[in-house]
């Protein structure tokens, strides 16, 4: 059995193509069934997100399967194959294993290390399991991919630094205040970005929210949303003393907060640090405020810069993650190679034949006066016994190819009858890591 993948991603196809090839997440039964109906495909799985479509299959004839899957993608979405062929990639064997491991570990994502993709693959696998299009091999393969992704997440810092502006603001606040759950945020103005950032602060535990706006009603409305307090715009500077974190995005053409004012505020705060985030363009806060001790002023560009730095940091972590992926590929590949049910059945038969032959020779050696007719019927009887004994195990083994018990059965048969391993090397089948239990 081989694993093959045909697909496209944000790296190979523009959104116009991706959206036409996407599968509706609510109606996966039909495409999964169709995929399984392709003659060379034994097991199938479809991952479809806004950034990628991946068809994954287990097959005996990888080349035929990949060609069929390409055609299937085009036919299913009623697009001419020529239109999408250049955007599709296909992988088989080790390359396919590597590809899915990397995708699950978010190494192939548009935003490196983003966590959603793992959940999306888990959902896709859920459908394949529900509609029984994933069997022994894909079950193992996907669970392995989940455990690789988990390892990458815990052993590298690939997902540890924020790559969105509003989350970067929260992380910066943590670098200044350590804890933000006992801090207060003041929102000045009511831009969308401002609200979003405020929401991030609130969900991360900020305890107190102050809102001010030129129109007091709007301030009150927003304050109600955050269970905060509205402050009249004329007096907002007085209330800055209470605020540790300030978010501004007013439409004011000039600075609404200057260096002098902030100096005064900081003095009244006994120099407790302040983190000011100026999302407005044109800016609301005089950039000179950043020169004051214990005041940290960030504008939109600064936050973007932080995001860029974080991304760079993630890229450095990615090489560690790639190494983990490489390690795990080998393990899974070996399992796959050892898997073969058919060679086990053949070896089992051969073993029984050997025993039969030995015992017949022994018996015939003792009973020299048997007629050839008697000999024939004894031989036939021995044959029949073997066939009868082997019938049930063979059927079970053949059936078990399609469900998760297959590997256990193969293991059991090999151990019970002391069969040689079918792969070139005599290594034992290594137990693979447990499918991860979290989430």
């Amino acid at each position, binding site marked *: 059995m081989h694993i093959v993948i045909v697909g496209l991603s944000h790296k190979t196809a523009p959104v116009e193509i991706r959206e036409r090839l996407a599968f509706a997440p609510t109606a996966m039964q039909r495409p999964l069934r169709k995929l399984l109906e392709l003659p060379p495909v034994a097991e199938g799985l479809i991952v479809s997100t806004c950034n990628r479509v991946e068809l994954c299959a287990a097959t005996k004839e990888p080349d035929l399967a990949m060609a069929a899957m390409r055609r299937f993608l085009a036919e299913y979405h009623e697009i001419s194959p020529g239109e999408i062929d250049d955007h599709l990639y296909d992988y088989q064997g080790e390359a396919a294993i590597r590809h899915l491991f990397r995708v699950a570990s978010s190494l192939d994502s548009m935003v490196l290390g983003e966590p959603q993709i793992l959940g999306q693959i888990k959902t896709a696998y859920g459908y394949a399991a529900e509609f029984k299009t994933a069997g022994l091999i894909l079950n193992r393969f996907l669970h392995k991919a989940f455990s690789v992704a988990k390892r990458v997440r815990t052993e590298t810092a690939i997902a540890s*630094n924020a790559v969105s502006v509003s989350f970067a603001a929260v992380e910066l606040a943590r*670098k200044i205040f*350590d804890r933000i759950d006992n801090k207060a945020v003041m929102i000045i103005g009511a831009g969308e970005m401002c609200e979003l950032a405020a929401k991030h602060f609130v969900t991360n535990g900020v305890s107190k929210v102050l809102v001010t706006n030129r129109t007091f009603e709007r301030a009150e409305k927003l304050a109600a949303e955050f269970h905060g307090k509205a402050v009249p715009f004329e007096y907002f500077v007085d209330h800055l003393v209470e605020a540790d974190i300030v978010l501004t995005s007013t439409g004011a053409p000039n600075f609404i907060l200057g260096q002098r004012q902030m100096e005064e505020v900081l003095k009244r705060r006994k120099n*407790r*640090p302040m983190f000011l985030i100026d999302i407005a363009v044109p800016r609301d806060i005089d950039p000179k405020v950043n020169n004051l*001790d214990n005041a*940290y002023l960030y504008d939109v560009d600064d936050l973007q810069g932080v995001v860029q*730095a974080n991304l760079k940091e993630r890229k450095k*972590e990615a090489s560690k993650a790639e190494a983990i992926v490489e390690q795990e590929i080998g393990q899974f590949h070996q399992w796959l190679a050892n898997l073969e049910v058919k060679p086990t059945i053949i070896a089992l038969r051969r073993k029984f034949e050997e025993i039969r032959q030995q015992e017949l020779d022994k018996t015939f050696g003792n009973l020299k006066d048997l007629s050839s007719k008697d000999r024939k019927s004894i031989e036939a009887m021995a044959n029949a016994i073997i066939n009868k004994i082997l019938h049930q195990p063979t059927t079970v083994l053949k059936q078990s190819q399609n469900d998760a018990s297959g590997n256990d059965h193969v293991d059991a048969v090999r151990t019970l009858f002391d069969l040689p391993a079918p792969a070139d090397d005599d290594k034992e089948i290594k137990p693979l890591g447990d499918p991860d239990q979290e989430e």
Partner: protein
Amino acid sequence: MTVNILLFKITLLIYFVATIFYLIGVISRKERFRQNAVYLLICGFIMHCITLAVRWFATGAIPVASLHESLSFFAWALVGIYLIFYLRYRTVMLGAFITPLALVLMIIGTTTSAQAPALNPMLDSWWFPVHVTLAFLGHAIFAIAAAAGIMYLLQERMLKSKKFSGLFYRLPSLDTLDSMNYKCLTFGFPLMTMGIISGAIWANSAWGGYWRWDPKETWALISWFLYAALLHGRLTVGWRGRRAAIFAIIGFGFLLFTFFGVNLFLSGEHSFRNFTGQ
């Protein structure tokens, strides 16, 4: 005494390896090195405890009488206090400053005579070990404050300039560093004060005068005033952050000068030469 010197050398070796691990851990992004550095340091500290205990047992006095002994004791206090801070704050980075400092003290220690000093009878007083122990514990705590101060300035610089190096991700938050500064001050200042007072009492019993204005006393007093000013500023005017960090660094500079500089450049009752009569 040879057992003792062997133990001392083993301790030094472990500190050396720990320093290397810390430096690799800080420069590269290998977390494992930093974590192992902490374990190494703990091993080194245990070894150091044994070293001091053996020496104490052999000479019958707290090993702080010669320059060699006091350097070793200072390094021991430094590592011990850092490990206490590590338990509280889990800041591995602090060790990257403290461990090399302890190592340097130990290396200087090897260059000095490890001979047990023939104790000057003047030093044979109960106040002497109390004075020295308190002073060194205070010094060690202020060393932590200075290291936290350096980290604060680095971190603040990055937050202000918005240019982040890999260090940014590994340094603790400004608030943590500033609260370390405060913690150090609240523990270090009383220790230092008691160290000076016990020294004065001992001086009175040894020389018949509480204060003689010898250079070490003078410099210690200057450092004391500096820390007093910082504590006062923190408690009343709300000094914190950058200013507190700078004060802690300068203060420790004064302490180092009090310890080394006075011995090297100036002479007085505190010089070790006078202690041992060499």
